[in-house]
């Protein structure tokens, strides 16, 4: 059991950035096709990141580099806790800490656009936080445990009973808020040529680390999506993986056909969804089960 846990944690640490990068590449490809372009390869984000790393450290590395690395650490830690089968709440808290350190890094780096990006990221986190915790509570009510190993291996499939929470989780933290001129971390759309948002004043290496951190975070977020379908059987594992990839594709499409939500609207809709649909969903499954 311990060896299996260690192997899954190691597999996460090694393969998660690639999975996140490929998902980013798929989103970029969908984005390009939606605009009538061919777009780059789906491995292009990896090439971009390697190209940045190859350019080495520049002269403008400051204290923000430290915060970026701490943010990466918490994103990796979130995944390690998740794949070690530990508490889902701890995973969500670690993701939150990763975002907080990214906000601090962008705030201290000192340019106007990075502060704007930090401001947006902080608001996004506040908007998404209730839904994230609501999802964890939903899993607890449905399966009777916060531990990922119980949810993934032995719990009943939570997708249908938690449909309201699933929709909220898909649309709120991963979907609509991220799409804007001051996009989360590094923008991937070609027309966003002058704005690098949070990574605006980051050193080359720090920007690459920031990007890798976002891939880890993305993998953890989609792993939580997978939990909605998992019950430990081989069939549901396959269904879960396919549905998670489909969800990522669907999010890419939603991001392209829907306009960006401004901060206030995003905040209102996210909290409204969390506290109305989320609580109604919880009450329904509490009564039924």
């Amino acid at each position, binding site marked *: 059991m311990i060896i299996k846990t260690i192997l899954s944690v190691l597999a996460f640490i090694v393969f998660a950035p690639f999975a996140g990068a490929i998902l980013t590449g798929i989103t970029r490809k969908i984005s*390009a096709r939606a*605009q*009538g*372009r*061919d*777009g*780059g390869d789906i491995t*292009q984000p*990896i*090439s*971009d990141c*390697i*190209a*940045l*790393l*190859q*350019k080495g450290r*520049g002269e*403008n590395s400051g204290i923000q580099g430290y915060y970026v690395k701490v943010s990466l650490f918490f994103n990796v830690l979130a995944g390690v806790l998740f794949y070690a089968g530990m508490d889902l709440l701890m995973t969500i808290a670690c993701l939150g800490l990763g975002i907080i350190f990214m906000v601090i890094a962008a705030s201290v780096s000192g340019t106007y*656009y990075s502060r704007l990006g930090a401001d947006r990221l902080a608001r996004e986190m506040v908007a998404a936080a209730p839904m994230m915790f609501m999802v964890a509570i939903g899993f607890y009510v449905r399966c009777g445990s916060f531990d990922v190993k119980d949810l993934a291996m032995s719990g009943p499939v939570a997708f249908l009973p938690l449909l309201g929470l699933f929709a909220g989780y898909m649309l709120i933290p991963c979907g609509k808020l991220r799409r804007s001129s001051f996009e989360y971390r590094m923008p991937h759309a*070609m*027309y*966003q*040529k*002058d*704005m*690098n948002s949070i*990574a*605006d*004043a980051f*050193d*080359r290496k720090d*920007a690459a680390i920031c990007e890798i951190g976002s891939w880890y975070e993305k993998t953890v977020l989609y792993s939580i999506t997978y939990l909605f379908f998992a019950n430990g059987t081989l069939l549901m594992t396959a269904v879960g993986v396919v549905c998670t990839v489909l969800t990522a594709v669907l999010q890419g499409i939603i991001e392209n056909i829907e306009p960006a939500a401004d901060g206030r609207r995003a905040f209102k809709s996210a909290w409204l969804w969390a506290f109305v649909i989320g609580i109604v969903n919880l009450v329904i499954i509490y009564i039924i089960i």
Partner: protein
Amino acid sequence: MRSVAKIKDRFKIPGLKSLKVNSNWVFHFDGSGCDGCNAEYIACLSPGWDIERLGFRNTGNPSYADVLLVTGLLDEEAKRGLIEVYEQTRPDCKVVAAGVCACTGGLFDGSKGILSGADSVIPVDLYVAGCAVRPESIIDALMEITGNDTNKGTPEGEETA
């Protein structure tokens, strides 16, 4: 760190720097003028030409750039900006002057306050002629200067000059 280097030597693991990746970052600097060459570069990003499929990527940070693309007329105001941008680029960042105004000053060369092209301010590696410069010429120049030999044909619906 020394032991890591030893392991790399022992098992002949290629270093990160020796990996060949198809990713070229372009920083675009537009001076003043009619804005035609600026619009033509923006057209390179559009569905008609789409340089993203060739591995090019725009950046707003000069220190990330592989290519500094200069378009438009340069006056004293733009000169200050261009020098500031050039000082932030890496030593091996290439400079491309696109359009006749950026190459020589064009029709406006010798006018009061107008400089004779980008090479009167910073060293230029490649000149691209045209008024306004065609997107195909810009793409050719970018591929030439970065050694990018991707051949993906022409995107759907491309208009040829």
